[in-house]
């Protein structure tokens, strides 16, 4: 809550500020692209898959791809996870929309017949660049996208294995973008000089070339046994483009991130029988998403923790195994972790191949240091916060190349913001003045007890997505291992969504303090009490509001008693019973729809 000092009674919450209700929609707030999640989930429940797909497409550009591969920042944020055990399976619901949407090409936008005369170059044909291209082409820009590979998609195509993401899904969603028009893909054309590119007459340049360098491991034996030691992302890329189609029977994968998970699962499909993942950290601290670890273990791949690589063991130039030092996590008084050797004897594992997936780095060998683009000490470009503009005004960065390795959804979010900046820049406007989001509020009341959303809360626990039998999926690199939800399960899972975007809106002057809302609220969210400073107020609520990351909505003083209405947003089910029981309409359920601004929103 803004401006809440200690021992000062709280001011009425400003619910007109777009951020207040946006934060209540935890999933949308957590999504880097701020996709209106509950809105599309309701459409899935209604069987309107194409509509649900288009909401996603507008916001996150790659619904079919993300519905299979997203890092899902939305799910840990999901309110359902605080109400019961598990969040709504948002990611897989997105896939339901993509899988069932039918033909949507007629709904896709087209570039205006009149171009605006501005030409933009995008370096790299990955998710960030494609997002920039989509946003700008639609409003009249001509976008030229360069990539060194023969196919577009960047890391989406090169690093994510086909058994997780079928190629036709990538092709389809790239085609929707290029189908807009005004976008030229120049593939197999690596950019080798920024200075040369700057000389060409582009109005702006967007760098979305990712974090292309896999970190290596400089320990004894690395050089001698090099033939059987591979850098994870390069190896995945070679597999993806068909340059590699087999691996030894015994494989060690080093690293605990999602790339490591892709490496080990790919190995299982290329002849690896005894595949193990060896990680320095503990299991819980691994960077890989929990579901990716689960999928790997499900394929018979053990994950061994607290082992630090010590040496590659080789005989006659041939790799035979690896030794590891056994470590344990120790925490200092500040809670910082260090991994210290336990003194136990080193562990040795035999193997035929090793895949190193211990991180990625940015690399810009093609950007001359005197090209006017400043880099910080970590080798990342210095960017004007939030605008993605570099110190060379016409060059913008986004995706992994901006702030280091993240994921697809962050790349998309960067792309949208960079496209806004590029548009502002090309129109001669201040890039730091950002267009506001578009917000709509609409009452959902249909009748005395009727709402235009389904407010009856489903008690179902999270549904599991179906998988192909292991025997079938391990045999083929190109067959998708996860099947997703069918329409029926998709409906049931969609019903688990609490519709957090249908907001509880309180109109203080109408309240007669009858307590009806307090009495009916299943989650004890609502309290009428004396106003106080935030800490006191939080502890005075019927159910003390201990989760400080969630706001308290405080009303103006009420006319009968001078108390305030204080609502803890934390575990509100958005069931609307407060509004149903309210005799005066002081409570209303209103749908909050926030669309982040896209390029073109305020440039003209």
């Amino acid at each position, binding site marked *: 809550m803004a401006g809440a000092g200690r021992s000062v009674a709280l001011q009425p919450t400003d619910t007109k500020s777009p951020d207040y209700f946006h934060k209540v929609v935890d999933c949308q707030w957590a999504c880097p692209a701020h996709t209106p999640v509950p809105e599309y989930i309701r459409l899935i429940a209604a069987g309107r898959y194409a509509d649900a797909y288009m909401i996603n497409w507008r916001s996150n550009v790659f619904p079919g791809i993300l519905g299979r591969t997203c890092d899902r920042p939305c799910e840990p944020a999901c309110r359902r996870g605080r109400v019961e055990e598990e969040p709504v399976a948002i990611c897989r619901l997105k896939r339901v929309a993509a899988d069932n949407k039918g033909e949507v090409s007629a709904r896709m936008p087209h570039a205006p017949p009149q171009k605006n005369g501005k030409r933009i170059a995008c370096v790299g044909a990955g998710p960030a660049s494609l997002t920039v291209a989509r946003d700008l082409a639609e409003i009249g820009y001509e976008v030229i996208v360069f990539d060194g590979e023969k196919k577009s998609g960047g890391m989406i195509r090169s690093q994510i294995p086909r058994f997780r993401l079928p190629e036709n899904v990538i092709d389809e969603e790239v085609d929707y973008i290029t189908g807009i028009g005004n976008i030229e893909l120049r593939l197999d054309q690596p950019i080798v000089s920024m200075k040369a590119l700057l000389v060409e007459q582009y109005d702006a340049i967007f760098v979305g070339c990712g974090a292309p360098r896999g970190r290596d491991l400089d320990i004894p034996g690395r050089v001698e046994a090099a033939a059987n030691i591979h850098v994870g992302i390069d190896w995945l890329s070679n597999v993806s483009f068909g340059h590699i189609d087999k691996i030894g029977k015994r494989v060690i994968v080093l690293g605990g991130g999602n790339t490591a998970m892709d490496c080990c699962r790919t190995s299982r499909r290329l002849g690896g029988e005894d595949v193990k993942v060896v990680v320095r950290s503990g299991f819980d601290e691994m960077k890989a998403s929990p579901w990716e670890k689960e999928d790997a273990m499900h394929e018979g791949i053990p994950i061994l923790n607290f082992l630090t690589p010590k040496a590659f063991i080789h005989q006659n130039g041939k790799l035979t195994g690896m030794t590891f030092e056994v470590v344990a996590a120790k925490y200092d008084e500040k809670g910082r972790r260090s991994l210290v050797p336990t003194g136990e004897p080193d562990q040795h594992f035999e193997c035929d191949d090793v895949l190193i997936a211990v991180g990625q780095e940015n690399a810009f060998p093609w950007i001359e240091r005197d090209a006017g683009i400043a880099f910080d000490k970590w080798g990342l470009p210095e960017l004007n916060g939030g605008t993605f503009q570099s110190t060379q005004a016409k060059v913008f960065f986004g995706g992994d190349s901006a702030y280091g390795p993240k994921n697809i959804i962050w790349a998309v979010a960067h792309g949208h913001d960079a496209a806004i900046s590029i548009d502002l820049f090309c129109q001669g406007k201040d890039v730091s003045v950002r267009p506001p989001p578009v917000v709509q509020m609409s009452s959902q009341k249909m009748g005395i007890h*009727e709402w235009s959303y389904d407010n*009856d809360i489903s*008690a179902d626990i999270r549904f599991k997505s179906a998988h192909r039998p292991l025997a079938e999926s391990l045999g083929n690199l190109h067959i998708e291992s996860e099947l997703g939800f069918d329409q029926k399960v998709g409906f049931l899972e969609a019903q688990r969504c609490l519709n957090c975007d249908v907001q509880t809106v309180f109109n203080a002057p109408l309240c007669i303090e*009858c307590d*009806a809302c*307090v009495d009916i609220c299943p*989650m004890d969210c609502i309290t009428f009490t004396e106003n106080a400073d935030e800490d006191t107020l939080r502890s005075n609520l019927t*159910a*003390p509001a201990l989760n400080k990351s969630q706001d308290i909505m405080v009303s103006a003083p009420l006319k009968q008693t001078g108390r305030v209405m204080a609502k803890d947003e934390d575990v509100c089910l958005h069931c609307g019973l407060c509004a149903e*029981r309210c005799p005066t309409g002081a409570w209303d359920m209103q749908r909050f729809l926030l669309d982040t601004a896209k390029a073109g929103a305020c440039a003209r």
Partner: protein
Amino acid sequence: MTYIAKPKFRHPDLEPNTRGFTRRDYEGKVSTLCAGCGHDSISAAIIQAVYELDLEPHRIAKLSGIGCSSKTPDYFLGLSHGFNSVHGRMPSVLTGANLANRDLIYLGVSGDGDSASIGFGQFAHSIRRAVNMVYIVENNGVYGLTKGQFSATSDKGSKSKRGVVNHDAPIDLVTLALDLGATYVARSFSGDKHQLVPLIKGAILHHGAAFIDCLSPCVAFNNHEGSTKAYDYIRNHNEAVNRLDVIEPRETIEIDHAPGTLEIVTQHDGSKLRLRKIHPEYDPSDRLDALAYLAERQSKGEIVTGLLYVDPGAQDLHDYQNTVAAPLNTLSDSQLVPGSSALEKINASLR
């Protein structure tokens, strides 16, 4: 009135009481009363009181008559015993049940129509017989189910929703209860659970006839200007004489008030009623003073609330009748039918 059932999800931090029940476990079905009805708040207060007293639902019997108020036992204590009787006849059914099984806690729920009109006599006799019970009247001063006629507790001079003025003198159930010998008498307001919940708890723990007149605005027919039972009217005229905390026998009592402003009454079962005095001159142990005080304040248009009278050493119907100590259903055949020799003895004693 709500169409969907109240979701089963509850606040993750909701604590169970010593019996393992959360407050939600004491709820009943979802209310079908009008939105904003004071009666629903009283139901919530009963739920809260029973939860806080760690009572097991099967130890409670809730009884009611006919009317909006008498529908409410369906909306709380869904796991307890219940009896929805004929209009105005709740007190008799409760008396009979109490005589048969003295081990249950009896909660009689009634309204101003049910108790001050058709069941007036029943009300009076259950009180004067000192039935061990909690008798709550959910008093809204209007016949809500029949669309808003004045009830017997409507104040003289108050107006109906259509502007008609009431010329009949009102029945004050608190004064009557005091007069008839109730040993725990309180008045409260559905919109003030901080006051109401402890009053219900004290009444449940009281041994004897406990009567609570609870003002409960009817949002549909009696919450307008000119009504003396509307939310804003009651708030503007509420004169609380004290604030009650109920301390169960196992709890220690904390004294954080200046001497003279606090009174502690120890009840029959060892529970303590801690009264923080708001009107220092008011003495809830003096029945005659209480009657005089109420008359005086009521003549000034004030609504006196709080614990108005309590006799901590009160006795009940069973004590006066010297009945058997155990519930009748636990008595064996030989106890119930002691045989011809016992009959001979009784007959002989009467000759």
